[in-house]
């Protein structure tokens, strides 16, 4: 057997349903998860954004356009949660996510593209094939995102974490620094005084302790190693379980430390398709509630 054939056989084996008899059950839980996700994104998200936009001035956000959109999304979510004939609902939710991509374009977040891909796959790909395609898609996404990060120096040098730790306090990247502060409090480590009342305009000498320098580098290189190295390890049976567990842990890390809650929870949902459906029962709600709670806590 040629190398290409061996590789395709390994991929086929890796993305096959872990429990073919209950693949339908797993995909049903997966669809319910994304139905809830869309409802939350549309109803709550639009509501919160309106309030933020008006900077505290409360104006009812449910204009006729929003009410219609919300009703369509709720209807789509109900349809996609059905055991069978869910494709129309998936198409409706795909249309909603396409609307979000287009209305935010060119500033639509990357996770929107992934969600659109998921809904389109659910709508178009036959039910017995969609699980495989989604499992393959998530591995591809991890691999290529790692490759792209490796092509520039922020992660390799650990600078990306250092910047998040030392940016002005009003920046949206504050979650990491809050966690860093909490960790250093717990372990009694000395955290350099964070520049709050400084003249930001010139070079600022930072008193970065050696442990922090090393930690940033290790975190950056571990992220690269995880993204590039783990998807190929899923292809081999011997390393598959460990690699999938590591990818799940890495997705949780993305949620907790990088504040990419939507992306992290979508990743976890896709990665759970590799596991036996019994894990879906508790892991999927946990990912959903956990990510939303983190989002609410960090604002």
């Amino acid at each position, binding site marked *: 057997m040629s190398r290409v054939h061996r590789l395709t056989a390994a991929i086929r084996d890796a993305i096959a349903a872990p429990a073919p008899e209950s693949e339908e059950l797993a995909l049903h839980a997966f669809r319910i998860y994304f139905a809830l996700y869309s409802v939350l994104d549309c109803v709550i998200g639009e509501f919160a954004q309106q309030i933020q936009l008006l900077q505290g001035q409360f104006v009812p956000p449910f204009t006729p356009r929003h009410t219609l959109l919300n009703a369509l999304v709720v209807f789509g979510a109900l349809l996609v949660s059905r055991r069978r004939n869910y494709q129309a609902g998936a198409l409706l939710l795909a249309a909603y996510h396409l609307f979000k991509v287009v209305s935010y374009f060119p*500033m639509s977040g990357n996770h929107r593209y992934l969600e659109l891909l998921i809904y389109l796959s659910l709508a178009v790909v036959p039910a017995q094939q969609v699980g495989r395609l989604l499992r393959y898609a998530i591995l591809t996404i991890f691999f290529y995102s790692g490759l792209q990060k490796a092509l520039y120096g922020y992660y390799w040098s650990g600078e990306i974490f250092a910047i998040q730790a030392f940016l002005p306090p009003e920046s949206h990247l504050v979650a990491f620094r809050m966690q860093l502060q909490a960790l250093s409090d717990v372990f009694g480590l000395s955290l350099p005084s964070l520049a709050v009342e400084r003249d930001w305009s010139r070079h600022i000498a930072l008193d970065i302790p050696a442990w922090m320098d090393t930690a940033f580098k290790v975190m950056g290189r571990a992220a690269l190693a995880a993204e590039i190295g783990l998807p190929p390890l899923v292809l081999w049976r011997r390393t598959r379980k460990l690699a999938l567990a590591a990818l799940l842990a890495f997705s949780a890390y993305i949620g907790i430390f990088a504040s990419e809650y939507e992306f992290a929870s979508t990743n976890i949902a896709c990665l759970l398709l590799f596991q036996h459906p019994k894990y879906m029962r508790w892991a999927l709600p946990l990912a959903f509630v956990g990510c939303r709670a983190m989002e609410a806590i960090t604002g």
Partner: protein
Amino acid sequence: MSARAVYLKAAYVVLTVWPLAHMLLALFIDFSPWKFMGWGMYATPYPELQQIVAFKKPLECRAQSPLAHGEARPAIEPRPALASPVFEVYDWQPRRVQRVPSLLPEQESLRFFEALRSFSVWNTESSLDRALERLHPYQPVLLAAIRPRISLERKLFYWDLSLYRYPNRHVRLVNRYDAGEVDPLISIGRELGCL
């Protein structure tokens, strides 16, 4: 092989090949990383953590007080106050442009940099394109790509800054410098004709 199986195989091939092809197209022929089922930030060449800030023509510029005869210019020049309303900080969320009111001279640096809240990892061209989609109606005259940098080796924090003029809907790079060379606010003030 049925037509459905062919489409499915094509989907796998596209998922495998398109991200890499998209990366190369974006790198070599200035192809948008965000269009054509875009791979987005994962196809963006030379991404940098940055935020675009747009500057409008200030209504008035406070002139620097002239030096009295024989008075020596101080070693560190006081930063001149920038007129109000002078800058609008572009936030990557749609329709969200933060207007920062007049800046007190002693606080301006702090206020300016604290107003930068939404750094994103894009390359500069994409960031400018994205910013101008929203900011064009505000008729900015100057754009700044502001990048926070930290050198872990030298244990230094500094701002890396590119300034762009925006005449007749064309973006023209004026200069790129880091904050160690020159105070970014002074460079911006000069470009706006305030100094």
